[in-house]
């Protein structure tokens, strides 16, 4: 089964317009100005959906829908956001029951607009269930994967909406059942020229997860900090939205350009505390001085280099090619400022982009690392064309074996 780039663009646009419609409904009801910040389609392991929700407390509504597309849609607000919204809607203090009812009603109106857009595009009807009120912490607020499907890949449409005057966000997740969505995507494919086989995209995602595991093992070996790969996903979004994926926090890390098949850019990013912690764990002696010293930065540069190799080597070995990369360039800036020039460069050739995101973390100390890859679409398609699924496990190469030949 294949999906073409044009369909992905169209479906992403549909989800984005649906989110805008939902947001407009909310603004009309509450007077609160909000904008849809990012809408992206991600191919992700079912068990990892919603990892980015972290440990915040959320409330929201969930719907089941059936028809040409079937699945679940979820609208979640962080609790503070929902309280402000209910206050705006009901004009003051309200009972818990009334607040729940308010959330359900706002959610119902917002999501009807969201789903109707899909039905109109597909020229069919999509029925949805009455809203169910949900609450929970982090990803637990989202519906559980059906038993036995936890390790399956699914496409998730996620919109992130920001209030204009407050640092509050809410999210719309659309979790369509895989087969009906793949069928719809295939039916609406405009051209075979830029089609991507979905099974290869899944395999590529699995290879990326193994690359993340290798990068995490490298961190452990260099620092003694037990580090685990957390999540790996491939997303598709308009190039203009790519910088928004990384956020406004300040990061320290490395950027490299890789060439070959695939080609593009890769970033290894640490928040400032993580960067300091991991750099100090790499050093044999205690470092004097406040903040990030030159020694910290040198250590981060080398760690970024080794993590990058750990990440891309598996692609090269499976594809039986070589992927060269430039020496790492140290970056220390806001996330969006780091990725913006890279997205602009990739955007000279394409309007949408695939983004590969991985995270790793540890329980030992405060440490979290993100790896983001921004491949050129054309080369990624070539890589997927050449990918032999049966070689997907051949990510490692043994120098001793090669040097003995």
């Amino acid at each position: 089964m294949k999906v073409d780039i044009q369909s992905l663009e169209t479906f992403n646009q549909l989800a984005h317009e649906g989110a805008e419609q939902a947001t407009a409904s909310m603004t009309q009801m509450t007077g609160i100005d909000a904008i849809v910040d990012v809408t992206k389609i991600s191919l992700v392991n079912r068990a990892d959906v919603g990892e980015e929700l972290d440990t915040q407390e959320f409330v929201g509504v969930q719907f089941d829908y059936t028809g040409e597309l079937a699945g679940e849609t979820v609208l979640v607000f962080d609790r503070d956001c929902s309280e402000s919204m209910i206050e705006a809607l009901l004009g003051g203090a309200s009972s818990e029951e009334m607040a729940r009812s308010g959330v359900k009603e706002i959610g119902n109106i917002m999501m009807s607009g969201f789903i109707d857009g899909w039905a109109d595009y597909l020229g069919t009807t999509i029925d949805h269930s009455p809203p169910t009120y949900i609450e929970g912490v982090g990803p637990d607020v989202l519906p559980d994967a059906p038993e036995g499907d936890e390790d399956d890949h699914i496409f998730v449409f996620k919109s992130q909406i920001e209030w204009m005057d407050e640092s509050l966000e809410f999210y719309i997740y659309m979790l369509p059942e895989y087969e009906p969505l793949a069928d719809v995507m295939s039916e609406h494919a405009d051209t075979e020229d830029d089609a991507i086989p979905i099974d290869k995209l899944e395999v590529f995602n699995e290879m990326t997860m193994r690359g993340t595991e290798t990068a995490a093992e490298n961190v452990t070996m260099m620092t003694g900090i037990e580090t685990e790969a957390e999540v790996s996903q491939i997303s598709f979004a308009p190039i203009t939205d790519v910088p928004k994926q990384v956020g406004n926090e300040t990061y320290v890390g490395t950027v490299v350009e890789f060439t070959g098949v695939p080609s593009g850019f890769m970033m290894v990013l640490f928040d400032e505390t993580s960067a300091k912690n991991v750099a100090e764990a790499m050093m044999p002696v205690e470092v004097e001085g406040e903040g990030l010293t030159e020694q910290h930065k040198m250590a981060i540069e080398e760690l970024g280099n080794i993590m990058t190799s750990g990440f891309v080597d598996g692609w090269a070995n499976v594809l039986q090619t070589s992927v060269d990369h430039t020496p790492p360039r140290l970056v220390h800036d806001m996330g969006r400022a780091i990725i913006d020039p890279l997205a602009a460069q990739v955007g000279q050739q394409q309007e949408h982009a695939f983004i590969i995101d991985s995270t790793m973390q540890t329980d030992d100390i405060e440490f979290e690392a993100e790896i983001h890859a921004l491949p050129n679409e054309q080369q990624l398609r070539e890589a997927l064309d050449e990918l032999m699924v049966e070689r997907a496990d051949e990510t490692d190469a043994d120098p001793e074996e090669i040097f003995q030949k």
Partner: protein
Amino acid sequence: MPEVLIADDSEFMRNLLREILEEDHQIVGEVENGVEAVETYKEKRPDLVMMDIVMPIRDGIEATDEIKNSDPSANVIMCTSVGQEEKMKEAVKAGADGYITKPFQKPSVMEAIEDVVPS
């Protein structure tokens, strides 16, 4: 003591290699790119070169090729984060005598050196 040239664009990695090697080896030079590696090799003729692959100006495989062309008896161990089979084959073709992938620990470095320059 065997003389060693370290070629790596990362100061952190040069420091680490120096700490591992200086007890049993004499470090005759530390350089940051392939051009400097070739020049310093020709000037000092060390017993061993520890050569990174990804370096600015000229990469380690090209530098190894040039060193081996000028002195086939040169001993070069690639010391790199790159773990790609095709790169390893390119290193063999350029004449590299050994290959260590980063991150490494002292025993694996010493073992690789012993294979190439037995004590």
